[in-house]
């Protein structure tokens, strides 16, 4: 992208005017419904705004960092951060590994049913979480399908969604199921960019499949992997829909995520407090992205 090098001539000025004409409807909507709320949210987090103050804005006081201090003294919020952390630390690598295995399998000389497989693995991505939750509740409930299948091999499964230990892993499983497809497609595109000659050279040197994967494919896929890790990380940090439709954050807050905590506070009318919580999550997202860039860029 070259900058406006043409100077301040009238032609450049006219182009600027025309260009902003193209951007105007977007900009108006963007400022009102996106940039505005982002800044308003930050401003609100330093006030004591609640649902009662909506009609009487002069009752709102600036309270500085009080909301943030209260947040980190609230055990439930800390607990929700830990749950979200577990969800990200387990869920993201698991999704990446499974999606990578599927992509590799699809990319290794499979000729028949390639499109069918791809559609099948991608299908969960396009479906409504609410609809899927109805089916998954039936799969995971005490007398549900999963425990029915387990009983065939003599295992008495837990009541997955009601068990304080198993509820979170159940939701992680569901989220992995729902997100494999996106990464699979990204990895399939990335695999096309791995130079074939490198593979052939490694094969001549006697490298086996596993060695070739770690020494040829993986290094070439670094940018794709970084990208996948960042977008999955961002998505998983906002972990909301699964607990909302499956467990409401229960049992005993075992699946309460930070986004859900924020939403609950909003529901109670604690608008400023909810805004502060959402900004903590936002900062966590930025930090996680930076860490991932550091880790995966190191060897470049």
């Amino acid at each position, binding site marked *: 992208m070259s900058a406006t090098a043409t100077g301040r001539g009238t032609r450049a000025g006219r182009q600027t005017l025309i260009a902003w004409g193209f951007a105007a409807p977007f900009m108006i909507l963007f400022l009102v419904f996106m940039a505005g709320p982002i800044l308003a949210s930050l401003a609100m987090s330093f006030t004591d705004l609640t649902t009662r103050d909506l009609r009487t804005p002069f009752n709102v006081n600036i309270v500085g960092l009080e909301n943030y201090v209260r947040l980190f003294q609230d055990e439930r919020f800390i607990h929700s951060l830990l749950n979200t952390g577990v969800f990200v630390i387990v869920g993201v690598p698991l999704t990446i590994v499974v999606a990578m295995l599927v992509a590799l399998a699809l990319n290794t000389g499979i000729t028949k049913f390639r499109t069918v497989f791809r559609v099948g*693995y991608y299908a969960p991505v396009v479906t409504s979480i609410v609809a899927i939750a109805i089916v998954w509740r039936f799969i995971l409930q005490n007398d549900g399908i999963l425990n029915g299948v387990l009983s065939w091999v003599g295992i008495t499964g837990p009541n997955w969604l009601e068990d304080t230990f198993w509820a979170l892993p159940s939701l992680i499983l569901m989220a992995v199921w729902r997100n494999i497809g996106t990464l699979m497609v990204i990895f399939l595109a990335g695999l096309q960019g791995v130079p074939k000659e490198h593979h052939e050279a490694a094969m001549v040197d006697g490298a086996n499949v596993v060695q070739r994967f770690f020494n040829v494919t993986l290094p070439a896929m670094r940018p794709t992997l970084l990208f996948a890790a960042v977008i999955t990380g961002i998505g998983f940090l906002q972990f*909301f829909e699964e607990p909302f439709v499956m467990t409401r954050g229960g049992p005993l807050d075992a699946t309460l995520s930070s986004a859900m905590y924020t939403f609950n506070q909003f529901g109670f009318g604690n608008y400023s407090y909810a805004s502060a919580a959402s900004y903590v999550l936002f900062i966590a997202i930025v930090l996680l992205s930076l860490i991932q860039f550091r880790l995966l860029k190191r060897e470049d």
Partner: protein
Amino acid sequence: MSAVTTPAVAEALEAPPSGPSSPSRASGTTSGTDSGSGHFKPRPKIWLYIVLAVGFVAMIFPFIWMILGSFKTNAEIRANPLGLLPAEPTLDNYTQLFGRLDFTTFFTNSVVVAVCVTLGNIVFSSMVGYALAKLEFRGKKLLFVLVLGTLMVPGVVTFVPLFVLTSNLGLVNSYPGLILPFLITPLGVFLMRQFISGLPDDIIEAARIDGASEWRIFLRVIMPLCGPAVATLTILTFLGSWNNFLWPLVVATSEEKYTLPVALALYSVGQNAAQYGLMMAGAVVVVIPVLLVFIILQRYFVQGIALTGIK
């Protein structure tokens, strides 16, 4: 805060697709032109197929079970949760769904909202996309950084002030309240900008020499070439709107404005929760239209993901 990270994000976003040609390559290999290691040892292929097939069944099993369950009576689902084929197929669940519960209204609401949101995204994203891709102007970099920067802002951050705004504008429980916040998406702009950047400059220059205005070039030269990108954007936006849950749940406060996911979520708790057949039918009505669209147009999905890297 977001501005600090955006160059890096931009770099990562641009990394995986090596231009608009990569999606066709990704989908074009179905013919099996790649000479994999299978050439030397054909044996493991059978195992690959078996493993892939097992995974495939695990992925689609919930859908199969849901569709078949929607044709079963509640008693049958309870008696035999592991059974697949309905013993006495019945349409009762569907007649109840559209008779007793007002699913026709919810369906209409979902369609109205999704169509408006999709149209808005196509028109506005194409316009900004063209400016960002082919026009030189002051503030262009800033505009692009703004778009990319907001790609990673979580929905919960804008959620609270957006609701305050909507309620102050008196738009709670109205179509505009459901639609306006989604008329533009940074992703849509990014997608259109990426695609239009790949179009040759010569045709635009030729039109300019002929004296065509930028608006005319946009409408007559650029847009007719944007078919694939518009198709991708249409599918992704329609789908996003169709499945959108959190915002409609808060803004639609009475039944006549419920969208399908909201209605389904609110009806699937309480006494209805035990009406398995009915709930499965509801899930089918929400899922099957998009699943069909996806299967028919799946190559555009792949293209969209390869172009932007985001679902």
